[in-house]
């Protein structure tokens, strides 16, 4: 697909995403200063030497934002990948096998879900060392639970389709049915879920850092930046709002891109999708995704 086929919004979103990726990959070269070098007074106004001003300790805000992007994105991406790998695998097995395996997985997930995720993370991270791998693991495991629910309902819907029955009649192994028959047909919903889940994990990570349980200072990340500069708001310094703005931009970029991918990903070989006729998506799974989203949003607001 060439650039010509992209809409204006998608072009802007793609450019934004490239910028975030560049910050992630090239932070040491893009950032004007090392993240923890003091370059002036605290909360200095933007100037020639520090484009966005300085933070509470007089470090360059732009440099810290760029380095923070790197940390936040890498941790979130790793956590999201863990969440999806584990969640999709468990969800598919539960949905396809049913019976006691399904019961076991679902009841365990119920236990995890019965405690609010933030409390979970607070308990686990206050007991365990707050290293990067640990944070990634905890975030990934907690979010895997939600992905599992979506994947399970998808697998249950798709496994009632004739072609899965035919595969079972051929005596196919579980692995083939999961990856060849169910996964390609679930991918559309999972991609949409990934875009949402990625942002929720990022918010969650930022919330943890803001509370001091996530990424530890002096390593910069978006939640930490907000926390360090929150007192400045009283003095009219908007440094604390910058990471929020970055996060909002990232959320919009990712979702515009994924929406674009989804709208082009009609069933192979079919005519271009007619607006108003929904794709061959099982109804219950779509509802499930919405339910999961609503739940996630409510929780984040609370």
């Amino acid at each position: 697909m060439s650039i010509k086929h992209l809409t204006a919004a998608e072009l802007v979103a793609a450019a934004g995403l490239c910028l975030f990726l560049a910050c992630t990959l090239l932070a040491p070269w893009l950032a004007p200063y090392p993240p923890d070098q003091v370059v002036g007074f605290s909360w200095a106004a933007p100037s020639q030497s520090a484009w966005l001003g300085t933070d509470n300790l007089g470090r360059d805000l732009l440099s810290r934002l760029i380095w923070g992007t790197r940390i936040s994105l890498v941790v979130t991406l790793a956590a999201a990948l863990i969440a999806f790998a584990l969640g999709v695998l468990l969800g598919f097995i539960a949905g396809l096998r049913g019976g006691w395996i399904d019961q076991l997985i679902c009841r365990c997930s119920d236990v995890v879900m019965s405690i609010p995720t933030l409390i979970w993370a607070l308990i686990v991270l206050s007991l365990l060392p707050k290293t990067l791998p640990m944070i990634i693991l905890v975030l990934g495991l907690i979010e895997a639970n939600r992905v599992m629910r979506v994947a399970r309902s998808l697998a249950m819907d798709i496994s009632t389709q004739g072609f899965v029955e035919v595969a079972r009649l051929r005596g196919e192994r579980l692995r083939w049915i999961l990856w060849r028959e169910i996964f390609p047909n679930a991918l559309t919903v999972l991609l949409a879920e990934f875009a949402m889940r990625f942002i929720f994990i990022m918010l969650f990570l930022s919330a943890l850092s803001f509370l001091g349980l996530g990424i530890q200072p002096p390593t910069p990340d978006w939640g930490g930046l907000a926390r360090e500069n929150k007192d400045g708001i009283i003095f009219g310094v908007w440094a604390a709002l910058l990471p929020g703005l970055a996060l909002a931009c990232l959320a919009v970029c990712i979702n515009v891109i994924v929406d674009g991918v989804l709208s082009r990903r009609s069933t192979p070989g079919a005519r271009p999708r007619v607006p108003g006729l929904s794709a061959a998506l099982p109804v219950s799974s779509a509802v499930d995704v919405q339910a999961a989203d609503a739940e996630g949003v409510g929780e984040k607001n609370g």
Partner: protein
Amino acid sequence: MLKGWARKMAEPLLRIEALHIVAAENDARSVVDRVSFTLESGEVLGLIGESGAGKSTIGLAALGSCRPGMRVAGGVVSFRGSDLLRLDERGLRRLRGSKIAYVAQSASAAFNPALPIGEQVIEVAYRHGLLRRDQARAKALELFRELGLPQPETFYARYPHQVSGGQLQRAMIAMALCAGPELLIFDEPTTALDVTTQLGVLAAIAEVIRRYGVAAIYISHDLAVVAQLAQKIMVLRHGRCVEYGDAEQVIQAPRAAYTRELLAAQAPSAPLAALPALDPERPARLLEVEGVSLDYAKRSVLKQVSLGLEEGSTLGVIGESGSGKSTLGRVICGLLRPRQGRLRLGGETLPAGLDQRSREQLRAVQLIHQSPDSALNPRQKIGRQIERALCCFTTLNAPQRRARLRELMAQVELGVELLERYPAGLSGGQKQRVCIARALAAEPRLIVCDEPTSALDPLVAQGVLALLRRVQRESGVAYLFITHDLAVLRQIADRVAVIKDGDVVYQGALEGLLNDPPGGYIRDLLSAVPELRIGWLEERLERPAAGDNENVA
């Protein structure tokens, strides 16, 4: 002024002139190509055609509506002199529901499951301010009574999931009639129903049309059904009008070759090709089902079912929806485990569960689904899906598999180029042929066919049936053919088993069933199939068969 009035009187109720509807995408395909007809009060026009012929699109156009993705390119849809295509949304809303009403194919999808049926039936009359609430309620109860719904008062307060499909379809007709419309559009209102239920609904439709003198457009792919109701028939193909005339003329003296083809597909009283005579000495038993019982959530679905099937023959299993015939097919395939009973294949015990069956046993029994859409993985190429069956069941190497694929495609009369396509690029009939090829790839001894033709248009279904017969002649495979359609059974089955409520109520030769139907149920089933002649419905209603009360109730 008098002149204007005179013109209005001369104007028919509905006049559609050179209606041209195109797909709004880049390729300007004509969905409906310059179709014209008029409809007077009290007249019924039947629209006949295969799926994709544009029947429903015309039906919607008569409401001044158009499916998303389509666009009216030209023509006139004039209702009582006003052009619906030029009315704005508000003007259309005034007409829809109150003057023109629509009865959809699937009543269960058209009702809101969260509201009582009665409330939904009176909604139009009440919202449009045509009747007061209590008047509308009284009207609805009256309609329920006329449509033969049991206990109208209780029915009014029921929710859609609490009543049967036939009752819901009647409730939808009541909904359409409640506001006293002048034009009704029936979009395949009986297609999703069993024949015996269909009979009751058809009778109800005929009765309300006669009593209220409304005009109607009746859309169907079933000529025999349309022949009972319509005075005029229009045959459509690819959006074009192939033939338009009085019902009698179209059915008895069709002018177009396509109409003759449709008629031939509909009325095959004798098998198209002579069935291969079974060997004089009884062939070996291939499949034996012994006392199989199965429950779904404590409801008994199969009760001690015993059946037998000979090598290379076809056993037709017929019954209404919910009778357990598909469940039986799935038990034989191993997808469902029976509570008790045994299966034997070629003298050997066939284990109940799939994981206990040997590769050889898996190979021997194949399944063809009702809906070819869901039976093919939409994200795998056709070739890969058939090849996978070859990988699983044969020891062929890659070049041999490719050669075999070509053979199989030739056997099901499909081009090799389809192997590289995804299922969405195929028509329904082609998909079903691919499913047959996939089943044949395993070189099975038995294929369980679960209504393989009921989702297909009549002509396409004929082709698939002919193919199945030819395959049987060539390869000697046996079929367990599940269907609800007697006409299909006549063409393919050597022996039949009739299932009602999980019981086998008849098992034996097809001729025996047709000539001397044992028991009231089978007689009802036989006599409820509409015959392709005008006046059949009246005759049928004049001499009610035993058990009709139950159906009408």
